[in-house]
């Protein structure tokens, strides 16, 4: 019954779980592209510990339940030494206990819910977490002198719900007023009702904590209804299609992100160019995070000089000031990345960097 499949010792097996199809495929595909790029680069450079890296990618179809199964599959069939993924917190939460129980280190590129890394000492992430990002945007709004903010949350996404929660907490505690709180579900297209209600509160800005798919339409409809307040949001906005769809309506809106692909730092521009050459589009944050998660793993393997579970775990946990595309990454005792956030704004149809807010 038990498997006798011979493992290939000449390579290092790394697993990746991503939503390549289904509802959130656009995030999964980006992070996968980033990860794959990192793997290709390291292999081209001769691999690690004298071996090539073999990336085993499994699609979870954006479905609950699937992530857990494929995590098990990767661990027990592909004999992976480490696990990368998932973008969505819900699915990372499914994988985390499995990785923890099997003693396989797992790094999530972009799951921002605080609970993800609570699964145990084998579970890490390279992105900042919701409380930080929510606080950052609240600070930013206050710094702009916006005291009255309305909130629009995607109640289907724990990510959006989390951001809203932490934004609200900080904003209200620091003298701001929430003048309207509305929600919708991802996939919705019509937000006129919520926006009409929000309009009544005459907000200085609207915090739209959801993903870019809906935010672009929210902006368009807000302008149609004559609401001119700027929209604020988180890293979920990051995608070229935000501006493609939102167009002029996005002008003057702000969001926080892990990195800016406009950033002129050579490492970043190098990454952007390579990515663009390969995929025909500029990388978004998911791609950058996918790339960073793989690179941090490789860095740890090199330092540990082993792919042994405990050794690798300790090496990852020791990651300090790692120069990633998405900033200088240090993993704290909670295995979360502490790193700065950048605030970006949309100007003349382009995403431009405004400022960096440190943790």
């Amino acid at each position, binding site marked *: 019954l038990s498997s006798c499949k011979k493992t290939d010792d000449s390579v290092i097996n790394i697993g990746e779980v991503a939503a390549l*199809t289904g*509802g959130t*495929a*656009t995030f999964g*595909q980006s992070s996968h592209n980033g990860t794959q790029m990192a793997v290709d680069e390291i292999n081209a450079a001769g691999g690690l510990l004298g071996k090539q890296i073999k990336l085993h990618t499994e699609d979870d179809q954006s479905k609950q339940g699937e992530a857990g199964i494929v995590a098990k599959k990767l661990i027990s069939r592909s004999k992976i030494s480490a696990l990368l993924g998932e973008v969505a917190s819900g699915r990372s939460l499914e994988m985390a206990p499995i990785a923890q129980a099997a003693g396989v280190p797992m790094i999530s590129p972009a799951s921002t819910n605080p609970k993800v890394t609570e699964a145990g000492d084998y579970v890490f992430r390279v992105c900042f977490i919701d409380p930080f990002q929510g606080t950052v945007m609240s600070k930013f709004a206050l710094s702009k002198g916006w005291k009255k903010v309305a909130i629009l*949350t995607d*109640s*289907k996404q724990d990510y959006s719900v989390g951001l809203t929660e932490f934004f609200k907490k900080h904003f209200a505690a620091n003298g701001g007023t929430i003048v*309207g*709180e*509305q*929600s*919708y*579900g991802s*996939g*919705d*297209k*019509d937000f*006129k*009702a*919520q926006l*009409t*209600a929000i*309009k*009544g509160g005459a907000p200085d800005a609207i915090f739209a904590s959801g993903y870019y*798919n809906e935010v*672009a*339409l929210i902006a*368009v409809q807000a302008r*149609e*209804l*004559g609401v001119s307040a700027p929209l604020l949001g988180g890293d979920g906005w990051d*995608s070229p*299609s935000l501006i*493609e*769809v939102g*167009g002029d309506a996005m002008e003057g809106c702000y969001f926080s992100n892990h990195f800016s692909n406009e950033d002129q730092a050579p490492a970043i521009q190098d990454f952007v160019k390579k990515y663009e050459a390969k995929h025909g589009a500029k990388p978004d944050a998911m791609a950058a995070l996918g790339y960073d998660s793989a690179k941090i793993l490789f860095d740890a393997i090199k330092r540990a000089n082993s792919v042994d579970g405990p050794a690798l775990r300790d090496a990852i946990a020791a990651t300090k000031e790692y120069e990633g595309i998405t900033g200088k990454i240090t993993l704290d005792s909670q295995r979360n990345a502490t790193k700065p956030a950048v605030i970006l704004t949309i100007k003349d149809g382009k995403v431009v960097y405004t400022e960096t807010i440190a943790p």
Partner: protein
Amino acid sequence: MEQFFQQLLNGLFQGSIYALIALGYTMVYGVLRFINFAHGDVFMLGAFTAFGLHKWLGPTFAAIPWPVSLALTLLISMVVCAVLGMVVERLAYRPLRNRPRLNVLITAIGVSLFIEYTGQLAFGATQRPFPELIPRTAIANTGGLTISIAQVVVLATTVLLLVGLRFIVMKTKMGLAMRALSLNPTASTLMGVNNGVVISFTFGLGSALAAAGGILYASLYPSIEPFMGVQPGLKAFVAAVLGGIGNIPGAALGGLIIGITETLVKGYSQNVGIPSGYSEGVAFVILILILVFKPSGLLGKVEREKV
């Protein structure tokens, strides 16, 4: 008060787009007695056809007045989707003609998945901006109320299609054959009806309507992606059942009711402390309430069976 009227308008337009999609849904159901779960996906294909057309002929279209280019886009996409619908019917549904309806339903789910995932492969998962077929400018801004041209076009199209469809189904020979076929296909073929042709026609018409719906929908909400048809498809289905499935004016009424209530709940629920996210369930709550009291839908005939 002004806000309330704006919400009513929002609801009316939202409802009219549901109604538009529901019309095609209910017509296909009325004739073939099966829930065409793939309707929403043909709807998506309609939008993508228009998208492709504009990528290809963009400059040409930009040179002619928008009503003309809109009409052309609609026409071409509707024809493309009608042909597609007929091909799907031919390949997937026709072999199941005399089979239990549940089989056809599963096939429809299969067709729906097939279109969605092939779409995702072909078009990519990321949403794309839909060209501005109808100027996105507001035509009225009086008294704080806003109405856009696109909204008016959608409402007008819905009314037009409602009248046109009802005429086809109730007044033409083809319509009579469609209704007869839905009741007893054996008997209708004994009357000389070529069932295959009628079914193809129905499918073609339904798909054309779906395509039109997709294009207008995308004009209102200008982002398209391969799964864009799932939610409107579901809402249209609910609207069709609410109005009495198979009943054309019923579908329109159902669409309006859902649109308006949904909007009002979204707009005002927060005032009583209920997150507006619950509005997603509103369509279903109305549906269940109405069906409990009127089991055959609002305008559906009580099919009292003679024993």
